[in-house]
Structures are given as C-alpha cells and as structure tokens.
C-alpha cells in the first residue's frame, strides 16, 4: 500500500477522542472499548490504524512486523513516524504475532513510562482461550478470551509483571475495538 488512503478527516478532534477511548481501555483493563470514528488502511485493522495515528508521531519510534510492513508509507505520510529497526529499541511495536515481551524495552525504575507499548492486531477479542485477569482497575477478577495470543502468553506476562514498575503495556486491536492489558495486571490461565 502506498499513501493513497486518507488518515483522520479531522486529525485533531478524532485523535483526541481516540486517545480518550484508549485511556478508558487502559484504566479498565480487559474491557472491550469500541472506537467511534476509525480509519480504513489495510493491512491495518481500523482500530490498529486509528490507535497508531493517535499515539505515534515524529518524536517516537515504531517497529512493525513483516505482515504489516506494507503500511510504512501510509504511517510515515500521516504520522511522520520514525522507523525502529530493532524491537529492543522501539517505543511502540505493532504486530500480528506477539514479539517476545522480555526482549522489549521495559523502561527503567526511574523512568518506567519509557517502557514499550505493543499494539497487537488479533483476529478477535473473544472466542479464544480463556484467561483470568486481576489487578488495579478491576474490582473482581475478569475473564477475557482474546484470540491470537501465543500459547506461552501467561508465562511471558508473569515475567513482564514481575519487573513492575518496569514492563511493557499491551493493546489488543480487532476490527474497530481495543482491549488494554497494562503491565500492572496479573494474568492466569482459565
């Protein structure tokens, strides 16, 4: 794909409302938040494309996996994003299969906010293997069942959670909906 698809119609307000919804998803982990206006830019799903246009700009680095590499021109044109060649250095990573979490930048104890954010495009946010999540933002444990996560996800996540406040945040995108799994969560099988 080249640049021949529009971005947001009204970049400022649409990016702001998308940001507000991502914030809502982050503060209520596991909840499925449907984005209002989205952007069509295959191979990126509408939610993935909108979240990327909202979160990345010329001041951050982004890494894309090979399945989404066709979107580079479009992202560079609309977001002016800087390409990261190594997963270890990227501030944002966008992929269709989860890169190994322990190899990503977890930030430092002094600057935990510099930890990477993974935007994972999955087939669906339900109908997959059931996992129980609990932690800040959840009154009671919640069951989620996103598809497209690796088999050893719970183990990987445990290691990610153990290094808190350092760690990696995960945003799952499917269709025009997002579901956030911040590093503060604990995740168990079943």
């Amino acid at each position: 794909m080249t640049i021949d698809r529009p971005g947001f119609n009204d970049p400022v307000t649409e990016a702001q409302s998308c940001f507000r919804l991502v914030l809502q998803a982050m503060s209520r982990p596991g909840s499925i938040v449907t984005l209002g206006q989205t952007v069509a830019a295959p191979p990126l799903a509408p939610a993935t494309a909108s979240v990327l246009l909202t979160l990345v700009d010329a001041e951050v680095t982004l890494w894309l996996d090979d399945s989404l590499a066709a979107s580079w021109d479009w992202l560079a044109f609309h977001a002016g994003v800087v390409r990261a060649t190594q997963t270890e250095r990227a501030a944002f990573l966008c992929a269709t299969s989860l890169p190994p979490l322990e190899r990503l930048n977890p930030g430092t104890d002094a600057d935990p906010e510099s930890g990477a954010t993974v935007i994972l495009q999955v087939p669906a946010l339900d109908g997959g293997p059931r996992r129980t999540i609990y932690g800040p933002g959840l009154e009671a444990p919640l069951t989620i069942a996103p598809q497209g996560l690796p088999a050893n996800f719970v183990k990987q996540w445990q290691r990610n959670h153990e290094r808190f406040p350092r760690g990696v945040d995960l945003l799952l995108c499917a269709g025009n909906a997002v579901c956030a799994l911040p590093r503060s969560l604990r995740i168990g099988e079943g």
Partner: protein
Amino acid sequence: MPNTDITKRRQSWMATLARSDRQAIEERLSEAVPLPGHTRLRGPEAGLVMVRGRAGGSGAPFNLGEMTVTRCSVRNEQGRIGHAYIAGRDGRKAELAAALDAALQDPDFGTLLEERVITPLASALAEADTKVAAEADATRVDFFTLATMRS
C-alpha cells in the same frame, strides 16, 4: 518518481501554483478543461515553517523568520496523487493546487492543462517579477567609491 524529466516539470508547475493567486488559477482553469474529482488524503492544514537565509548567498545560514504554509494532498479519480505547499492560509488554494498537480501528471490531459493554465500563470508571474525588478533598478545606487577603495 522514476522519470527526472517529469520531476523537473512537476517542480516547475508546483512552484508556479504556489506563487499564483487563487483567483488567477481559477480564471485560467475555467477557460481550460474541468478537473477530475478528487478525495482529500491530508489537509488542507496550515502550519509554520522556518525560512532560512544566507547573507549574500554564501554566508552562514541564519533563521530569517517563520512563515505560514498550507499543505494539501489529494487523490483524483484516476488514482493520481497530488501535493501542494502554498504560502499563506488559503486552504481552498492548497486543495486546488494539489488537484491540479494530480491532473497535470496525466500524459495527455496534463499537457493541455499545462499549456492553458500553467504557462499563462508562469508568464504573468515572470512579468510581475520583471516589473518589480525594474522598479527596484530605478533606485539602484552604485557604490563606485567603495569599489574603488577596495581594489
């Protein structure tokens, strides 16, 4: 852009469009052929750019000042993409210039447009430049003394 010839021509018509008035472009266009429809890809949106200069064309670069620039990118019905960066805040002019940039890239239709729109606009700009240069030339001061002293 694989062809350098088209790149040069494109640079020249983009420069002409950036410097011409919207009314002048619209007038020329109304006498030519109608443009194909287009959709906006980005903008029109206004922003600031830093204009840099060099004293005498060879000194160290310095920041002359910021200027307002409006940019727009469109894709027309033929699938061609046009870009425009113009001085000022006239979004309609930026969109029109981008649509023209897209249409001008068409091999047949573009030549006709170039003849009827760009060439007259370019000569009007050149004429205006000549007039200003002539006005400035009338008040030219030659520093003979300084030149003599230096040599």
